[in-house]
């Protein structure tokens, strides 16, 4: 191969390498931008604080989560709240734990509902879809 041919092949290789780097960087940035991970973590932390706030409320109360959370499924139990996108792996679930006073019960499952409410009735905290009046 002559010298000119070699330098063209090298130049094509270099170009491909640069394109590869740009593509990888764009991939990382796009994955981050499209990801629900940040929103999911924010929602789970908000929910945990809402549960603690409801525990500290002497009477009955209802709190509606102010934004659309239809992309998530949520499970509330006595120890934790779990938020996930349907079908995703265990590792990607967002979980926050809390400590309820003795006698308190936390429960509820919501699947891909836009408006979600936390209701406290006596010693029971329930996660459910909001009714039309509540949202």
């Amino acid at each position, binding site marked *: 191969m002559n*010298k000119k041919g070699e330098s063209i092949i090298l130049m094509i290789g270099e170009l491909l390498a640069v394109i590869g*780097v740009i593509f990888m960087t764009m991939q990382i940035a796009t994955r981050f931008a499209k990801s629900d991970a940040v929103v999911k*973590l924010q929602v789970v932390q908000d929910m945990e604080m809402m549960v*603690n706030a409801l525990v500290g409320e002497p009477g009955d109360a209802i709190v509606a989560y102010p934004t659309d959370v239809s992309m998530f499924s949520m499970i509330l139990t006595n120890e934790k709240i779990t938020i996930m996108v349907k079908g995703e792996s265990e590792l990607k679930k967002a979980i926050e734990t809390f400590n309820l006073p003795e006698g308190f019960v936390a429960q509820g499952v919501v699947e891909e509902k836009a408006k979600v409410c936390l209701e406290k009735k006596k010693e029971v905290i329930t996660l459910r879809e909001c009714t039309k009046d509540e949202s």
Partner: protein
Amino acid sequence: MNHKGQFDVARKTIFWMIAGFLIAIIILAFTFTIADYRSKLTYVLPQMKAEFITLRFANIPQCFAYKDDLTGRVYSSTIDLEKFTKERLFSCYHTEPKEGYQDFNFRLVLKNANKEIFTNNYFNKDDFTQFKRVLVKDGDSFKEDTLIVYVQQYISKPEVNPLQ
């Protein structure tokens, strides 16, 4: 290939080895920056988290809030001194016995009543303090007091010596 051509190829190979190493570092740094940015976006002040938890101490009868048994009325921000015990605090808030030190733990002090109780995984590591003005019911009298909440935010896991 002549000597000059071989030298060019070798030079470019070295250049791309160095460039590849630098590019890999840049991509890694970019990934870490995004991860760091993500954790900053989801950061919640521990003081705020603790504030929501400590609401219960002076507000609900299952903790220390005074409840009039005749009327059933709960007096928020009024602490029944009879309830202000370690056992009551355990039923109001306790963390997991084994690894609960990684969670919020509290030392509660009633300043004027001179009483102090703490949660089951509290180890005298006060990260911050909250002050709440309360009334204290002692027998038939109500007195103004300050509930001081010393907050132990987190104790990291102790390192295990593999030789032990």
